[in-house]
């Protein structure tokens, strides 16, 4: 495995660990963009990071930051700041560290699955979707002034939308895609009449076809135990994982002819176009569509 030469990928920030899972003095080995790295939590809590070549420390990673209880790293020169999520740290919601989960596919496939609604009835039958109601109503997609991709007015009927809920209800979703490998859901909270619950995914691309998903929740649910919330999230994510590993090719095709979208794929279409314009190479397939 070799560190990528894709500068666009290298010059961005990525989560590589949850701070609270990195005990003082402990070393954590992982890989980012094809480069082996080692993280160490200092005695003062500040993490440091080195690039590892052939098992030996090779270069100190200059850009290491702790934000939102996660450790962020940039292997190049950061082209922009770490994403701003004002809701984290704001009072009221409960912050849940949802643990890292590995997926043997490209980070982009994971992101696309995360903001897709039309699989709920089939992959998450009984929770996020049911076989009775499979239709996905139209929603809006736009790229905002700050370059972030958003989908709003998404709705879906869910038999069991979260750990807190017992019966079926229509859930409203907004999706925010602030970076190519990051997505945040704002969804109707069953525990609050006006405010949203928030679920965020920060995907660490280990290689082009392998990644680690770091995730957090910001929930109004003050009643369910951490374990109950985690079991629900892990159940949903593992279900997604069981389809993600069977999507071949693993890299996300950007050329439109290879994979045929439909109306409910509006955000996916926009995401692929957005990635195409960004010039990102890592994890995507830019070849002309092969004959089907």
């Amino acid at each position, binding site marked *: 495995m070799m560190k990528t030469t894709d500068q666009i990928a290298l010059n961005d920030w990525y989560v590589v660990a949850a701070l609270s899972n990195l005990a003082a003095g402990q070393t954590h080995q992982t890989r980012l963009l094809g480069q082996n790295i080692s993280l160490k939590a200092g005695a003062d809590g500040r993490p440091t990071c080195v690039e590892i070549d052939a098992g030996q420390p090779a270069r100190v990673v200059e850009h290491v930051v702790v934000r939102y209880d996660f450790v962020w790293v940039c292997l190049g020169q950061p082209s922009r700041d770490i994403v701003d999520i004002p809701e984290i740290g704001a009072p009221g919601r409960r912050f849940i560290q949802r643990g890292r989960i590995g997926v043997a596919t490209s980070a982009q496939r994971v992101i*696309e699955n995360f903001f*897709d*609604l*039309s*699989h709920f*009835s*089939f*992959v998450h039958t009984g929770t996020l979707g049911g076989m009775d109601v*499979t*239709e*996905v109503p139209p929603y809006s997609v736009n790229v905002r002034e700050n370059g972030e991709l958003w989908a709003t007015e998404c709705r879906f009927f869910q038999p069991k939308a979260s750990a807190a809920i017992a019966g079926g209800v229509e859930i409203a979703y907004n999706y925010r895609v602030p970076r190519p490998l990051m997505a945040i859901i704002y969804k109707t909270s069953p525990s609050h009449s006006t405010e949203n619950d928030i679920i965020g995914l920060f995907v660490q691309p280990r290689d082009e076809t392998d990644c680690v998903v770091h995730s957090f929740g910001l929930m109004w649910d003050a009643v369910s135990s951490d374990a109950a919330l985690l079991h629900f999230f892990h159940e949903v994510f593992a279900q997604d994982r069981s*389809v993600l590993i*069977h*999507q*071949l*090719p693993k890299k996300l*095709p950007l050329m439109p*002819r*290879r*994979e*045929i*979208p*439909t*109306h*409910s794929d509006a955000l996916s279409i926009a995401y692929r176009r957005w990635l195409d314009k960004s010039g990102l190479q890592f994890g995507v397939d830019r070849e002309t569509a092969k004959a*089907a």
Partner: protein
Amino acid sequence: MRIGAVNLWSWYPVVASSDLQAGAVMPAMLHGERLVVWRSREGRIGVWNDRCPHRSMSLSLGATTGETLVCPYHGWEFGSDGNCRRIPAHPALTPSRAARARVYPAIEAANYIWACLGEPASAQPEYGLFAGLVPEPIRSMHVRADAETVALVLLSHPLVAHPLATKAERPPAELADCQLNGDILAVTHAGERGHILCRARLGLPSIVVCQPDPASGSLPYAALVQPTGEDTAAIHLALLGNGTPAARLALNSALVRLRHRMGDLAESAWLLKVRNAAAGWAQPSPMT
């Protein structure tokens, strides 16, 4: 390659008919292509590229309802012609014609399902060597060896399996003769129970047919070789004619033993002899 030739115009076996019941969906590989093989509730077979045209999910993890194949990711339903009939996210929508699975020619014959990766050159698979006997499938077994090696091993080391034997039989003591007649390679083995004649037709997908001396009490069998990948194959073992469960179990055991020895047998002097005999034959071009 002279034996186990892989091409785009021949029929290759992918599964025994009895191993694909109505409503069954399974994955298969042919020459590195990932396929989904399925049978509708009414018995109609399909061999498609194992990729949903929507978001490239493996269709082999899907299911049939009635006459359609349903993708497990978003529930898209495909008819037997490969066209998408229904998109659950938009139930009233007529799906685009572009939303089509790649359908390969498939045929059910001689108790097997065969597929062609391109335009078939003939209406039926070529299995003349069965000499009018109907293959009764015993088992399909995958091996980590390429199709040519597998065919050569089967020709040079026939399965010795007597249904009444209580332990493993010794292999034939002698490779007595090896002849190339036209495109048919015939190898005669001399063993404890008499002669065994093994034959294969070159230039076509490998079907190795072995006929032991009738006096020996062993039954004739065929091994159809499916080239799954560059270095892998599946062996479809079948009795030629009817046989008891004991006979079928005996042949299966012999095949499993062969698989365990595959590495050594691939280097054996007998295999080299058979390979050399085949070397004299030139594969005609598909245009002639």
